[in-house]
């Protein structure tokens, strides 16, 4: 017997949208029915090759389909999503937003994926946020974290023109989410682009300020548990080393520090494996959509 699936669509058939297409087609709860763009493109052609209805008719075309999708994954731009979001909502369609529009609550599936299952619009934060917030949360669920800081290093080739034109958006959004979703009192985010060839795989470092007498064994165990949880949707998410604890210093206001070093290797679905930053966005979006879909199916059952 076929398990029921929830019909979904992708708007924005660029590289992100195409990578997402591969992931959604593997899903056992999501039925990718439509891909919409605004011009004929390689992405639309790939969608058709993959057996998905695809059109350059944009959101107008999408909203004229029957049945309508229940969930739209938007991989366009912040501006386009801001314009499209009210139309989805009016049509009773929920949105998983991969753009920097940030209209709905910020979701990192391993951390708060269950908290916004009925939201009409959820924001996937940023690539660096998806990679690092689970580690901040892994520490903050064990011990208070007055301050956490993340450093995301990505290959130059994986940073698109949108990211480059507004790099402050990454810094602000990610820093805010490290606090709001990660559970630190204050957050800071840093991003570095590295053009080395062959391209470097995404690397992330998470520093969390902790009390001098925080339970280090419990923090380490929590970090390992959280890595497993992220690996459920990003298999290439790994620790480079055990969490590193540094003793309190005056410079840190008498606090100690734990540092977590991560590598995020992409699944190589459409995007190359070094672009773990993009893979973790599409994987997190797919995961979030699945959680929302399961909740819907559960409510129907």
């Amino acid at each position: 017997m076929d398990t029921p699936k929830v019909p979904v669509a992708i708007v924005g058939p660029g590289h992100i949208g195409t990578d997402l297409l591969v992931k959604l087609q593997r899903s056992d709860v999501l039925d990718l029915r439509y891909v919409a763009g605004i011009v004929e493109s390689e992405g639309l052609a790939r969608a058709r090759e993959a057996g998905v209805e695809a059109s350059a008719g944009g959101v107008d075309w999408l909203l004229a389909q029957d049945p309508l999708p229940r969930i739209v994954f938007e991989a366009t731009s912040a501006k386009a999503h801001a314009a499209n979001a009210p139309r989805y909502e009016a049509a009773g369609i929920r949105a998983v937003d991969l753009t920097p529009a940030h209209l709905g609550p910020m979701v990192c599936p391993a951390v708060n994926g269950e908290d916004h299952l009925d939201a009409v619009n959820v924001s996937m934060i940023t690539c660096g946020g998806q990679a690092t917030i689970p580690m901040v949360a892994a520490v903050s669920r064990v011990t208070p974290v007055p301050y956490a800081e993340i450093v995301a290093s990505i290959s130059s080739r994986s940073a698109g023109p949108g990211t480059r034109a507004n790099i402050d958006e990454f810094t602000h959004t990610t820093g805010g989410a490290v606090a709001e979703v990660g559970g630190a009192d204050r957050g800071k985010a840093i991003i570095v682009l590295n053009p080395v060839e062959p391209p470097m795989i995404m690397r992330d470092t998470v520093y969390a300020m902790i009390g001098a007498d925080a339970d280090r064994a419990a923090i380490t165990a929590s970090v390992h548990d959280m890595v497993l949880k992220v690996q459920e949707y990003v298999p290439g998410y790994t620790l480079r080393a055990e969490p590193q604890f540094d003793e309190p210093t005056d410079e840190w206001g008498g606090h100690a520090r734990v540092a977590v070093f991560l590598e995020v290797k992409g699944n190589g679905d459409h995007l190359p494996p070094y672009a773990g930053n993009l893979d973790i966005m599409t994987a997190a979006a797919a995961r979030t959509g699945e959680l929302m879909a399961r909740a819907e199916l559960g409510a129907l059952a």
Partner: protein
Amino acid sequence: MTKPALRNDVRIIDTTLRDGSHAMAHRFTETQVRDTVRALDAAGIEWIEVSHGDGVGGSSFNYGFSGTDEMTLIAAAREEARTAKIAVLLVPGIGTVDDLKRAHDAGAEMVRVATHCTEADVSPQHFAAARELGMETVGFLMMAHRTDPADLAKQARIMVDAGCECPYVTDSAGALLMHEAKARFEALLDEVGDEALVGYHGHQNLSMGVANSVIAYETGVRSIDGSLCALGAGSGNSPTEVLAAVFDRLGIDAGVDAGLLLDAAEDVVRPYLQRWPKMDRNAVVQGWAGVYSSFLLHAERAGERYKVPAHDILRRCGELGYVGGQEDMIIDVAITLAAERDEA
């Protein structure tokens, strides 16, 4: 874009209080800043750069927390300067337009927006904000040894088109030999020389800072960085007092009093130096292997923590092609080297 007017044959921008922040582990006090600004101002220096070594917003676990809030230091510098003006550094990805506005409110009138030499297209947002604030603009193309002269010129073009009045050949690793520096100066001058000044920021890791500054001037570069006592990352910057003496001998008017700069270096800066940047093994390896100079103290600390030689860490950072800002990778490399040692 109008090319900034030169008051003298060449302008020297002193970065003791910014690049020097690395060598001071970002612990400059307000008194040290006031004393240094007074001395530089009296010696005729036109621009004084003040901020965390990694630019505004740099205070962090990754780069080191500021001992005194940089905005306090910028405001103090502004108060002390009679004719000199205050510049700040901003590295997109670390600092933001909000940090820039705070620095401007505190009295900064120039921003130097710094990107890795191939990533200039992350800077237009910050140049636009700076121009809106009415600030003078400089663009740092860091680790300039990591790309060829033609590409460096293209990157300078991106910055100038975005509102940069003076792109710099920024030799963050102190790696550029004289002919390599010259080829980059010529390429930038060819590309943007009609619309903008071109600058040079040197480090002494291979002892080339002053020699390259002379070549820079001869080639047409008109904005040159220095630091008193070379105070800066790695083995430090081209010493401002040496640049002044050399330009004086060459009959080039930099608008500064070399004697007063020697006094400033000897009487003001030397007494507070925790370390006098020098060409020791670690620093030379940085120039040799092309490693970001600011990595030095971090590599020394990680070397001590993980019991591996700092120069091995730095060499590995060079092999892996790490760029400015990736100070976290120093710890990662130290852990890796320690593991390799334990396996051996």
